[in-house]
């Protein structure tokens, strides 16, 4: 199996192990957000807005959370209360959720003892929500939009590109003019226009799917074009002619004989274009046109950081979603380059 062989090759390169490890960790964290997050996405605390990250101190032989008090409400200044801290509890009780949709539980990895204390690993935002928890829940949207988007795009691109490369003629002509049309449009403009047209017809909790559809509608053209060219050359091979003369239907030939030849290319192309979807969602949500409150996504969280107050009072922890995006994108880019080196050694970048 070719995918298995490629995977084994990835594990033999240090950069491959590193990037794949980072990505696996990120996706696992997103899936287990319920367990890892101390608070729910919308657990507000209006007494503690723009709270800085809480320090962890070693006290009475255990790890404890430093207590803070509000010094200046106008500037959201907090000061540590000397000598007061709340014990951390591993695997304690918190809000109720369904573990992976299977059974109800209240256990969380990290919680805090004492009702008046709050655990803010990465500070709190303008309504006192825990940034760390929202980062984890936001990862679900931001990370899976890439996977879903690339699946739709690749399927669409393969169908259009494969069929037009295989049949040629009139179908090919029409399909390729469509592709050129899509590619001639400035992507971000089209994104904005599509979103303003589609959004009013959907509820705000369906926005996730609207965004996936919009991003995929824009992205399929490039894939289709490359796949058409590759299909054109593959269909000259004798085994395709043999399959044709045996009377196999075009769709079967595409799936059984053409697709296996494209797998390695598709894998590399998909890995390198997933960041595009993540960035697209982030940009849309950042502009207030994507995922809507109260859901969380990295782009949406960053749009909160656009406040003048945030700049002047240095609430740097509100920028962490940007670093999360950066780490994800760089991991995908490195993994993509490693895959390309494996699949096509001639294309080596260095």
């Amino acid at each position, binding site marked *: 199996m070719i995918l298995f062989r490629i995977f084994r090759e990835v594990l033999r390169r240090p950069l491959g192990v590193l990037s794949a490890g980072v990505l696996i960790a990120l996706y696992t964290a997103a899936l287990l957000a319920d367990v890892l997050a101390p608070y729910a996405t919308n657990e507000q605390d209006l007494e503690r807005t723009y709270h800085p990250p809480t320090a962890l101190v070693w006290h009475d032989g255990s790890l404890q959370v430093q207590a803070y008090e509000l010094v200046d409400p106008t500037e959201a200044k907090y000061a540590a209360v000397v000598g007061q801290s709340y014990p951390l509890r591993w695997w304690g009780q918190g809000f109720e959720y369904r573990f992976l949709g299977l059974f109800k539980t209240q256990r969380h990895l990290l919680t805090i003892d004492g009702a008046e204390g709050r655990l803010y690993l990465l500070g709190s935002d303008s309504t006192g929500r825990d940034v760390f928890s929202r980062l984890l829940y936001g990862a679900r949207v931001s990370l899976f939009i890439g996977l879903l988007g690339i699946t739709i795009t690749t399927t669409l691109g393969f169908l259009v590109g494969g069929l037009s490369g295989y049949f040629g003629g009139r179908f090919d002509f029409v399909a390729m003019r469509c592709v050129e049309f899509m590619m*001639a449009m400035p992507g971000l403009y089209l994104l904005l226009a599509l979103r303003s047209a589609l959004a009013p017809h959907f509820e705000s909790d369906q926005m996730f799917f609207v965004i996936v559809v919009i991003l995929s509608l824009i992205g399929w053209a490039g894939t289709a074009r490359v796949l058409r060219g590759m299909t054109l050359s593959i269909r000259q091979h004798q085994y395709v002619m043999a399959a044709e003369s045996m009377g196999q239907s075009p769709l079967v030939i595409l799936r059984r004989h053409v697709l296996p030849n494209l797998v390695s290319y598709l894998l590399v192309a998909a890995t390198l274009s997933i960041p595009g979807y993540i960035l697209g969602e982030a940009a849309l949500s950042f502009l207030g046109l994507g995922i809507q409150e109260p859901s969380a996504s990295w782009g949406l969280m960053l749009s909160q950081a656009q406040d003048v107050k945030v*700049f002047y009072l240095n609430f740097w922890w509100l920028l962490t979603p940007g670093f999360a995006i950066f780490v994800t994108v760089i991991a995908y880019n490195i993994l993509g380059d490693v895959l390309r080196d494996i699949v096509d050694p001639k294309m080596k970048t260095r």
Partner: protein
Amino acid sequence: MIAFILRRLLTLIPLLLGITMLVFILMSLAPGDFLTPVKAQRDVPAELIQAIETEFGLDRPWYVQYVKWLGNVVQGNLGHSWAYKLPVVDLIGQRLWATFLLSLAAFVFAWGVAIPLGVLAAIYKDSIFDRIVSALAYAALSVPEFFLALLFVFLAAQTGWFPLGGATSIEYDYLSFAGKCADRAYHLILPTLALGIGSIASIMRIMRANFLDTIRAEFVTTARAKGLSEFVVMFKHVLRNAINPLVSSFGFAFSGLLSGALMVEIVLQYPGLGQLMYQSILREDQFVVLASVMMGCSMLVFGNLLADVLLAWSDPRIRLEKKK
């Protein structure tokens, strides 16, 4: 060559027709129109609204509106912006200038930094310098532009070294000519950096790869065998050949700059075409959206054309005319 250019320009016509039609359909799908905020104002008489609606055919289906708009455009009338109370041509003219200035600055900055960096990284391949520059380029490629812009706003607010957005200061109109230039340049620094850093990385990587490819060519061995100094070999023979493929990406860079500036303009509140486009979509300022989409598409086509022409000019092996 001229026939080729004409042919390419002709393809622009169906493209623009198709795109404006698509935008028209999309905007008619969205509820409300540019008159919705006007209707909410009490002091606008109902007869006036009625008159405007019939003038632009707003009560008719979208294809009638489209044909009407198209008729106006052919006569050189791009319509009127409702939000800005200005003819679209004037509005776009102002904004286009600002965006063009920004794009040009980012372009000069990116190319001016990227090419020497790429060449040096290739000459000193596998040195510490090469490794650091390559790693930095990798990081720069992966930072979202708007996040970089956000970081710059943070920097400006914290240090006070740079203005917090805008293209000019408040006292701009009272400055001397030199003062005006300096003021504009000062406001351009952050947007230029935010826009340029991503392209530095990609240009540098291409330059480095090209240079490394060319070093292995046989004419380089010949030049060295003749006893030419390493400096002459590198800069007279290798550089000239390695820069060829970049000439075509010059055109592509040109095409991408106008639409690429959108996010940076919004975050840094730079009054350019991208920001205008974004605001008019939100306000359903239909004619402004149509005009800016047309601008964006034309730039894209011109940029691609420029890329092809430049490539043919710099590389004699490429001929644009069809084989006889």
